[in-house]
């Protein structure tokens, strides 16, 4: 991966046909041919990159590029959105997110999109230099969180937010501040527990070394007592405070009558400590304080590692969720005195548009939805005509025409032109809000699984207790003290230190590696839920397919293609954009030149009918089949065939004759076939549940060539949920989806996987989400999970073998504390090495 920036130098060279790919001066990606400006010194792949580049150069911040090159990570184009942040100045926003300092300055925290490396940290923290009035800016890279302190006298928060946006890091107010605060407290407490346990363990170990020395060389009774009492006192904080969370876990496990790892741990710690304390008072017999404290310390470290890795996924989900628009463009003053609507012409001065938080929208409010915006409410279109992409809500791959009087739903995307919508339902009352409630219901209904290690620990407790009583019985004839001594020795040596660390470490390491390979997994149980093959259920639009229209088929007279390109370039329609990018790739340089010649042609657009133009004296129409009269035989047959394959036919007529037939479709993802094959090989069966038309679904399934056991179209989100809940009773179900309509099913499945680019709702509902496009992550997840659980099993076997050796020695009565003290760290070491050396989720 190269981040080498090679600015394109124009001028004397052949600017129009560069022999080498032109790279963006900011991000280093290839600049699309259409965006090259030959007279400019620097070329940019997008507007965002251009903005950032200029901001950096004007402010002498070009060192950014050095840091980024040194870091070596790949970057995408800058995300500068150019949005307005005016609503950040509203009193409501300040009340929610801004904190006041005693000296009159203000504090706020934002989640930033697009921060990923050292250079980003440097740049964001240079904000005080860019925006006078910003006093401090600290970025937390792991949480994507920036903490800002500023002087409200000098600068408004909206101006700061705009400056951050221009740097390519659109800011969003954090959503779950309270939970983050709680997490932070718990993290700190766990760290302090580790510190206390570690300090106790270290010091007890030093004293133990002296005592072991005395074991071989002899030691004055006076000093032996000193060391024994010393280690007893030092063990107290570790056992009484640091280890308390294990006792709590064991208590809950007992009360719920469910096996849990904390139970054998608690038994081990408490018997070891109890017997050690008794022997200290007695002044004779073994004390096990060194083993007990080391055990507590290592187990706490294991917990901490797993916690850290799990947190990463939930944080990433939080950022994605915060990115969902939380504001709407409210129109004020658009109704006259008597309540009737005034005109909404572009030049109309009657109304103002104000960006407001979504919560501030009331029923009946008028909102403006610009092209490309997400519709914020369920409502009626009162002005404008456009197309709405409902893929996330319904799974339909084709955008639908809406005009005044039509109903639009929150969560759909307005594609082509501005709409004015009257809010009829907001927030939780919208269709999307109701679907999200289903998600929570489904999540609460999902049966928890007993983790492998916990299941083992159940047997383990019984086995250890049986062995201990056997020891007690068989040594009883030698006197009760000796019998108890041997039984306690057995309980301590079999205390499942390695067993307790085996899972957290292996799972933590696996989650870390999964994150590096593009999979964010929210919990360790996901790995275990994927052990047995079951059914993989796919959504269609945006999951199996790319989720966008692509030119797939051209029939007829290709001489007219440049005409099509020239006309379509003037439209912002979805189909037009698909045709333009498809044709730009397909046409020869001569044809492209021909299209350029026709740049002056004016095309008229009639919504729902198509594009009309006059080219070289011919009447040209590009449009759908419904709008065409008397089709030629080949064209009507072709259109029918295209429709059968799930494609949208587009007709080009010249002077009333059909000359070209273009087929647009939502193509299969390039890695879909291979992934489906691999899943079948692993023993999974495949199913599709789609909201799209059954014919389209069927055509796509045929195209994959994979043995789907079931492929249903026209399925509502509620039905998806029902199907999944029904199947999950019999076998593990992996649901793969991207939309709001999949969210409930994702949360009901054994494991829900949200693919890259999905709706925020699906990311929230899913257990796993991919940060790389395509379906390969699904296979990688299943494969990696199996390998990781293999590591867990291997660890468990290791620790059991150690325990078996220890137990045998204890039963035979030859175990002394030194052997116990050696066996325990040795087993832990094996487990740690085995966890971090494993190759699951290899990139």
């Amino acid at each position, binding site marked *: 991966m190269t981040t080498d920036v090679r600015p394109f130098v124009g001028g004397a060279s052949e600017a129009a046909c560069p022999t080498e790919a032109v790279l963006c001066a900011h991000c280093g990606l290839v600049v699309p041919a259409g965006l090259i400006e030959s007279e400019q010194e620097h070329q940019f792949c997008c507007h965002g990159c251009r903005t950032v580049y200029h901001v950096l150069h004007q402010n002498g911040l070009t060192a950014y590029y050095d*840091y980024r090159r040194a870091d070596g990570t790949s970057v995408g184009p800058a995300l500068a959105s150019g949005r307005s942040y005016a609503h950040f100045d509203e009193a409501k926003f300040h009340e929610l997110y801004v904190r006041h300092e005693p000296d009159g300055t203000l504090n706020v925290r934002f989640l930033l999109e697009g921060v990923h490396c050292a250079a980003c940290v440097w740049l964001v*923290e240079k904000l005080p230099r860019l925006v006078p009035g910003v006093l401090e800016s600290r970025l*937390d890279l792991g949480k994507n969180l920036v903490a800002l302190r500023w002087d409200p006298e000098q600068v408004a928060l909206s101006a700061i937010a705009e400056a951050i946006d221009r740097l390519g890091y659109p800011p969003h107010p954090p959503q779950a501040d309270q939970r983050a605060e709680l997490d932070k407290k718990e993290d700190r407490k766990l760290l302090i527990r580790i*510190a206390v346990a570690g*300090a106790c363990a270290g010091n007890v170990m030093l004293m133990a070394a002296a005592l072991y020395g005395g074991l071989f060389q002899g030691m*004055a009774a006076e000093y032996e007592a*000193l060391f024994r009492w010393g280690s007893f006192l030092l063990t107290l904080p570790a056992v009484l405070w640091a280890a308390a969370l294990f006792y709590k876990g064991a208590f809950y496990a007992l009360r719920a009558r469910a096996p849990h790892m904390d139970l054998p741990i608690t038994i081990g710690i408490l018997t070891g400590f109890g017997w050690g304390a008794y022997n200290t008072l007695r002044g004779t017999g073994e004390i096990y304080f060194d083993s007990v404290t080391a055990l507590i310390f290592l187990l706490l470290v294991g917990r901490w590692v797993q916690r850290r890795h799990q947190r990463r996924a939930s944080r990433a989900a939080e950022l994605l969720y915060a990115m969902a628009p939380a504001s709407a463009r409210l129109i004020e003053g658009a109704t006259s005195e008597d309540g009737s609507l005034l005109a909404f012409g572009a030049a109309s001065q009657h109304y103002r548009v104000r960006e407001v938080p979504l919560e501030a929208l009331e029923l009946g409010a008028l909102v403006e939805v610009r092209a490309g915006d997400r519709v914020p409410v369920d409502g009626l279109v009162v002005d404008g005509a456009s197309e709405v992409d409902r893929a996330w809500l319904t799974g339909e791959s084709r955008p639908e025409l809406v005009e005044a009087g039509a109903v639009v739903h929150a969560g759909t995307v307005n594609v082509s032109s501005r709409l004015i919508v009257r809010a009829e339902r907001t927030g939780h009352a919208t269709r999307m809000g109701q679907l999200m409630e289903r998600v929570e219901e489904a999540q609460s209904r999902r049966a928890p699984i007993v983790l492998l290690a916990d299941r083992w620990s159940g047997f383990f407790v019984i086995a250890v207790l049986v062995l201990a009583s056997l020891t007690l019985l068989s040594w009883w004839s030698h006197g009760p003290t000796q019998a108890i001594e041997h039984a306690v020795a057995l309980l301590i040596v079999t205390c499942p230190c390695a067993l307790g660390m085996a899972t957290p470490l292996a799972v933590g390491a696996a989650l870390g590696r999964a994150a590096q390979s593009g999979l964010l997994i929210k919990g360790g149980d996901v790995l275990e839920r994927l052990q047995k093959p079951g059914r993989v259920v796919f959504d269609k639009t945006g999951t199996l397919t790319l989720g966008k229209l692509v030119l797939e088929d051209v029939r007829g007279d290709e001489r007219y293609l440049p005409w099509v390109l020239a006309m379509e370039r003037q439209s912002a329609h979805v189909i037009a954009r698909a045709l333009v990018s498809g044709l730009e790739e397909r046409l020869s340089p001569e044809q492209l030149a021909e299209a350029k010649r026709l740049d002056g042609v004016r095309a008229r657009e009639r919504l729902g009918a198509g594009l009309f133009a006059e080219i070289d004296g011919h009447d040209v129409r590009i449009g759908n089949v419904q709008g065409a009269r008397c089709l030629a035989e080949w064209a009507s047959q072709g259109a029918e065939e295209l429709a059968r394959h799930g494609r949208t036919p587009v007709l080009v007529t010249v002077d009333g004759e059909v000359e070209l037939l273009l087929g647009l479709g939502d193509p299969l993802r390039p890695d879909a076939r291979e992934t489906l094959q691999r899943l079948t090989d692993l023993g999974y069966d495949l199913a599709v549940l789609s909201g799209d038309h059954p014919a389209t679904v069927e055509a796509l399934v045929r195209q994959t060539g994979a043995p789907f056991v079931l492929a249903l179209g026209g399925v509502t989100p509620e039905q998806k949920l029902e199907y999944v809940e029904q199947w999950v009773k019999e076998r593990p179900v992996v649901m793969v989806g991207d939309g709001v309509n999949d969210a409930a099913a994702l949360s009901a499945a054994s494991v829900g996987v949200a693919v890259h680019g999905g709706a925020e709702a699906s990311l929230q509902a899913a257990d796993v989400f991919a940060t790389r496009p395509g379906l390969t992550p699904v296979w990688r997840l299943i494969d990696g999970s199996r390998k990781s659980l293999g590591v867990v099993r291997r660890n468990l076997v290791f620790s059991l073998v150690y325990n078996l050796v220890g137990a045998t020695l204890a039963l035979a009565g030859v175990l002394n504390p030194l052997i116990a003290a050696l066996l325990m760290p040795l087993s832990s070491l094996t487990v740690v090495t085995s966890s971090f050396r494993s190759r699951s989720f290899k990139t």
Partner: protein
Amino acid sequence: MSVLYLLIPLAILFGALFVVAFIWATRKGQFDDLETPPVRILFDDDK
């Protein structure tokens, strides 16, 4: 060897001071972010 009665408590007191310092630092939020500081150290101040 009776100096041990002085030295061991002294050593433990010393160790306890470090634990207290660590607890103080944790409460101050020094260990909340473990990813950015190792990156921040790379920057020259006057660039």
